[in-house]
């Protein structure tokens, strides 16, 4: 009889431990960090292709915590064009072209050039500051731009040679 | 040194207590009967001695604790249960070999023991096809494997007919003579009388008395009174048997199973002898106060 009682209590410990485990599994509160991309594993939420190269990648997180990942800044712009309800409220990050860093899209400086072959051929990359962007634009023969301007324009088409 | 020591043995099953503070010692060479009504705790006591049930208190065989060193303790014990159950898939020879090995003996030793109980011709017979008497003899042979000093027998004759019972008793008698110690439970007084030197009287889990067969007999059959001997015979022989006994001056009447004879203590075996000589087939008998 005592055995059975003992067994029951160990069962309740088990259940309790389980609940603890599960609470540990709950997603962490939304942080200021960009969503994680598993490169070579996750696919772009616009063009559905694998995201392999960090330096062209972009991500966003909606206020209710949904995450989107893109292999090309052009795909991000297309996505935002098709989902205007997310465009104004989402947190948007773009990856730096030269370093392993993420920037908030509103703070980054962008270069658009026909000579940049990005994964989906939109030819847009992001950098941290205006100086780097300017020198890149000069060497690549492209133009320097900001995220607001990119968003205001119609979504980019893939670059075409003149 | 005592062969078996039982101290303050108490055994509970759930809320019911089967044995209460039971203590006794048994010396080498003794033959001890456990006597008491059904449910008095005889079987439970034997199982505790075997160490196959957990209990409170201490039981030692040759100083070996049966709970803590059960394996060594059981090496000193041969056991014949009330209803012998063997593995139905094994033959007699395989069974003997298996239990010999279990005791760390040569399997050949197991087969040699079968000669002792006259089962050597049935080596390849499945144990399931043995008669009750044969099974009991096999059990006895197995209990003797490794020559343990102590034999525990739980109503060993209860499923036997009268002739097998007599043979079995003879065998036990010989073992006793050879120096074995016996502890057995029974509800047949004649077995106590035949085999035991000492009787432990159990009642409701208590040790009521530690006494002798003679004392038990006085308890059961006071000298002055008359007893009823119940005889079981085949139905067709009964009227003839009644006549035979009446001609020898016995008071006889018939009941459902056979006949009953009024006897005094000193002549209680005479009706049996008379009928056997006259060629009657006595299946069984019981003595009642």
């Amino acid at each position: 009889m005592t055995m059975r009682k003992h067994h029951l209590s160990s069962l309740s410990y088990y259940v309790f431990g389980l609940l603890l485990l599960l609470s540990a599994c709950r997603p962490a509160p939304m942080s200021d960090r960009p969503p994680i991309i598993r490169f070579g594993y996750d696919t772009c939420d616009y063009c559905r292709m694998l995201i392999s190269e960090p330096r062209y990648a972009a991500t966003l997180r909606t206020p209710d915590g949904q995450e989107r990942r893109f292999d090309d800044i052009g795909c991000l712009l297309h996505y935002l064009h098709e989902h205007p309800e997310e465009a104004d409220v989402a947190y948007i990050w773009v990856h730096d072209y030269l370093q392993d860093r993420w920037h908030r899209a509103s703070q980054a400086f962008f270069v658009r050039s026909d000579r940049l072959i990005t994964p989906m051929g939109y030819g847009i990359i992001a950098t941290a500051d205006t100086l780097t962007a300017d020198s890149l634009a000069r060497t690549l023969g492209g133009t320097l731009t900001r995220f607001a301007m990119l968003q205001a324009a119609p979504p980019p088409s893939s670059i075409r040679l003149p | 040194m005592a062969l078996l020591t039982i101290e303050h043995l108490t055994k509970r099953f759930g809320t019911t207590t089967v044995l209460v503070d039971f203590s006794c010692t048994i010396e080498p060479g003794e033959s001890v009967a456990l006597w008491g009504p059904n449910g008095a705790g005889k079987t439970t006591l034997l199982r505790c001695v075997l160490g196959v049930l957990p209990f409170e208190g201490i039981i030692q065989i040759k100083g070996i604790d049966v709970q803590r060193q059960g394996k060594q303790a059981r090496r000193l014990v041969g056991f014949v249960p009330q209803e012998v159950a063997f593995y139905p898939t094994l033959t007699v020879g395989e069974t003997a070999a298996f239990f010999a090995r279990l005791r760390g003996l040569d399997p050949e030793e197991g087969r040699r023991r079968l000669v002792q109980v006259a089962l050597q011709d049935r080596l390849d017979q499945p144990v399931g096809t043995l008669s009750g008497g044969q099974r009991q003899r096999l059990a006895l042979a197995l209990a003797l494997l490794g020559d343990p000093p102590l034999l525990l027998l739980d109503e060993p004759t209860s499923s036997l007919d009268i002739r097998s019972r007599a043979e079995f008793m003879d065998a036990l008698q010989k073992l006793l003579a050879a120096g074995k110690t016996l502890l057995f439970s029974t509800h047949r007084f004649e077995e106590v009388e035949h085999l035991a030197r000492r009787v432990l009287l159990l009642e409701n889990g208590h040790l009521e008395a530690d006494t002798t067969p003679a004392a038990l007999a006085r308890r059961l059959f006071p000298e002055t009174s008359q007893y009823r001997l119940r005889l079981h015979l085949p139905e067709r022989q009964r009227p003839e048997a009644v006549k035979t006994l009446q001609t020898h001056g016995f008071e006889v009447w018939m009941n459902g199973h056979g006949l009953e004879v009024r006897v005094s203590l000193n002549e209680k075996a005479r009706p049996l002898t008379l009928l056997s000589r006259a060629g009657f087939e006595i299946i069984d008998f019981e003595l009642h106060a």
Partner: protein
Amino acid sequence: MGTGVLAVLLTTLVAQAQPTSLLSERLAAVAPGDTIRVVGGIYPGPLRITKPVVLLGEQAPVIDGRGQGTVVIIEAPDVVLQGFVIRNSGRSLDRENAGIAVHADRVTIADNRIENVLFGIYLRQADSCRILRNTIEGDPTLDTPRRGDLIRLWYSNNALIQDNTTRYGRDVVIWFARGIVLRGNTIQFGRYGLHFMYSDSSRIERNRMLHNSVGAYLMYSTRLTFRRNLLAYNRHASAIGVGLKDMDEVTFEENVLVDNQIGIFIDNSPRAIDAQIRYLGNVVAYNDIGVQALQDAPRSIFRDNSLLENYEQVDLVGGGRFSEANGTFWERNYWSDYRGYDADRDGYGDVPYRAVALFDALTDRTPAFRLFAFSPAVQALELAARAFPVIRPEPKLIDVAPRMQPLLPEGIPAVPRRPRPVLALGGLALLLIGGLTIGSARLRRLR
């Protein structure tokens, strides 16, 4: 006889002894349109060809880039480069280091072996080129994203790419190129077997794309014929056999898609309101999902296809159904999970095929439930759903007259089958172990 051997030996010796600069000098010396025969030898790269000449390699002469830059650069039209071994390009993705870079029209690159390169053959603004029977191998030690594309076409129209073999590259890329014919190539162990974008009026046939992350991704193009290709073992994270995104006017015919994660993936195709896509006579077998579409696949005809043993035959992401109102038609396909009969013996089932599976309906809405795939519980659920039609979901599609027998296109290169002698030994060993255990335990009495 003796002199013949001697001559060959001498030529070889001479070739070996040639100063490595000799090839450039010979190039400089010839007139446009001339033919240069190169017999054996090892020449250092880079080799720049600026005249329309024919370069014929015999006994596999080698042009070695020694790990620096692009090995052969062709800047003149009508060049023919045939029979060479071209190896060891640089490793810079940004500079697009390649085995052969072509910047001129009507160039033919044939029968070369291109080894240990980042990019393989790179056509940039080079129209009407021909890439024939080359073998191109990348560097398998690099991570796939760090590799280059073994064939890359960039603004290069009317190319013929035939009977090439590529291995260990990133993708085969065809971007901004009209009128391409891609035929009989084998593309293996890369990321995208084919990444095809903005390239209208092209023809892709009889190619084999095996063991890539994704077989072929076809995007943003119109008027494409995609037929008789074999796409197998393309499995990786989010892997698909063939994906169509924003494709218009496609004839997708008699392809074989085997053992991919998703056989055919359809995203917003067709896009144009007057465009149509025809899926005809394809074999879609042993994929996790046979055909997957985001929402519906409007203005599409699926006819005479054979869907065999896909774990989920057809999947509509988000649930719902293929609607004939949108112009989606499923007709006369073979379904390996069809349970109907053909009483009138016309080769078509008398009962419509309905793609209904309770579990599919669950996983289409909540993909996480795919975790329960292969569970006996799911089987029980399906049985229950069959027995009690009350909980039967609406069918995803209805094929009114499904085929009774699969329709298998002939002449398609077969999926390589591997014999399994080792497995046979394993099976035999287990059988022996089991048999002997039981046999000996039964025979040997317990003595």
